[in-house]
């Protein structure tokens, strides 16, 4: 069937694929016929993701610490040899720590920045090299609505997600001559298994408060996967340097 937004046959690299949004993206991409290179710290959980993916596509798992540029470099070379050059990359890996800004330590700030921002760059740099990428590669980074609206307690996380939003604009201009695009997605609160667990541990009142501001309810991991798939397809080749807000209307309040 005609589908200009298809990623069938493309090789897509997903970071943070062992859980949450990253895992769902891997599953949905495999069902759409894309071959996968999955990166995460957690080897066991990564293999579990692979089991959830369609067996019809190639799926290469690689346990690696995204903050270690040399190991990432080696992993990308191996993965490309095993699967194919990268046609699209989705950076889902991210960590968070909720504390008032003056209680967050230097180490907290650095740790969060290293995974959320440098982690993306450490993967993108080797992908940009030589024959590690296909033609018209599309990059998608997961930011957050905290990059555009305030939420008490997430200063380090918000700053890292804001960094993604800013760097996407510059990188878009740098890679455009190669016909490549880069965009970010800013999700609102997504009901990942972890978030679901967290919500269940709350009192009714706390739960209400957490859901407040989401007139269409909380999001599903597939809501993000579908938007990422659109941006990774050639149908979105005229969109670059943008932040796509997927938040069920939260920021239009």
């Amino acid at each position, binding site marked *: *069937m*005609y*589908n*200009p*937004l*298809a990623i*069938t046959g493309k090789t897509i690299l997903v970071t943070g694929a062992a859980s949450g949004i990253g895992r769902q993206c891997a599953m*949905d991409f495999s*069902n*759409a*016929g894309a071959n996968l290179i999955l990166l995460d710290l957690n080897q066991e959980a990564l293999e579990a993701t692979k089991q959830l993916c369609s067996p019809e596509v190639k799926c290469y798992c690689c346990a690696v610490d995204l903050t270690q540029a040399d190991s990432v470099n080696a992993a990308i070379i191996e993965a490309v040899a095993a699967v194919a050059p990268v046609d699209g990359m989705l950076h889902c890996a991210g960590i968070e720590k909720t504390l008032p800004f003056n209680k967050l330590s230097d180490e907290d700030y650095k740790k969060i920045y290293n995974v959320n921002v440098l982690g993306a760059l450490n993967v993108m740099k080797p992908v940009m090299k030589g024959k590690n990428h296909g033609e018209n590669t599309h990059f998608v980074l997961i930011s957050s609505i905290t990059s555009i609206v305030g939420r008490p307690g997430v200063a380090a996380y918000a700053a890292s997600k804001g960094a993604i939003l800013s760097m996407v*604009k510059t990188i*878009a*201009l740098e890679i*455009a*001559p190669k*016909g490549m*695009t880069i965009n970010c997605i800013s999700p609102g609160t997504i009901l990942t298994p972890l978030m679901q667990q967290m919500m269940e541990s709350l009192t009714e009142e706390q739960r209400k408060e957490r859901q407040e501001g989401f*007139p*269409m309810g909380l*999001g*599903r991991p*597939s*809501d993000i996967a*579908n*938007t990422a*798939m*659109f941006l990774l397809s050639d*149908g*979105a*080749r*005229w*969109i*670059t*340097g*943008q932040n*796509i*807000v*997927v*938040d*069920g*209307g939260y*920021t*239009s*309040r």
Partner: protein
Amino acid sequence: MNNPYSLEGKTILVTGASSGIGRATAIECSKMGAKVILTARNEERLKETLSMLDGEGHTCTTCDLTDTESIAKMVSELPEIHGLVNNAGFSITSTVPFIKKEKYMELIKVNTIAPVLLLSLMVKKKVMKKGSSCVFVSSVSGLGKASVGNSMYASTKGAVNAFTMASAKELAEKGIRVNAVCAGMVETNITSNLSVSEEQLEADKASFPLKRYGRPEEVAWAIIYLMSEAAAWVTGTELVIDGGRMLK
């Protein structure tokens, strides 16, 4: 193969479907499985678009969107609509000192008031229900990124962008989504009719990061994403589609 962007089973109304982005959107929506209802003022060119659609069951209806009665008549005859593409619009260029009230009113009527009233009436008459989606075809000029001479046009689109956000918030309660695509320069008849030389056009294209103008289909595909179930949790979003032109 799973296709979350399929429009199978949906009926989509496209305004301004006789040319440019509207025509391309109608064609692409039909290829994605939608039943399409086309509307514009010019019946002849509308029929031409109709003949270009894929599949069966598409219709066209002429409507003067600046006329409240004409809108009311069309809406009263519509079946349930799952997607509204509010695309009809045009541009009048003028530098600031030469802005004329009549021209400005004409622009506001077509670019701002007509799409707002159409959505309003379709929701009121329950032609659009829970799960439906409206996309305003807006412009990067509505975000303040306008070329000289386009200030009137920019202000009509700025109003559309503000309405998109405000109505998205309100209609979310009804489960109706409202988004805007803010398109940059796209190769349509409007650009090919501009009074600039071929060389000037080429120089302008070279100033784009991707070294070309957009194509109507590329805007259509973004609209399809927003119309589809893939965007079921996307509302109040301004999707800029301009080849990176406005990043600098």
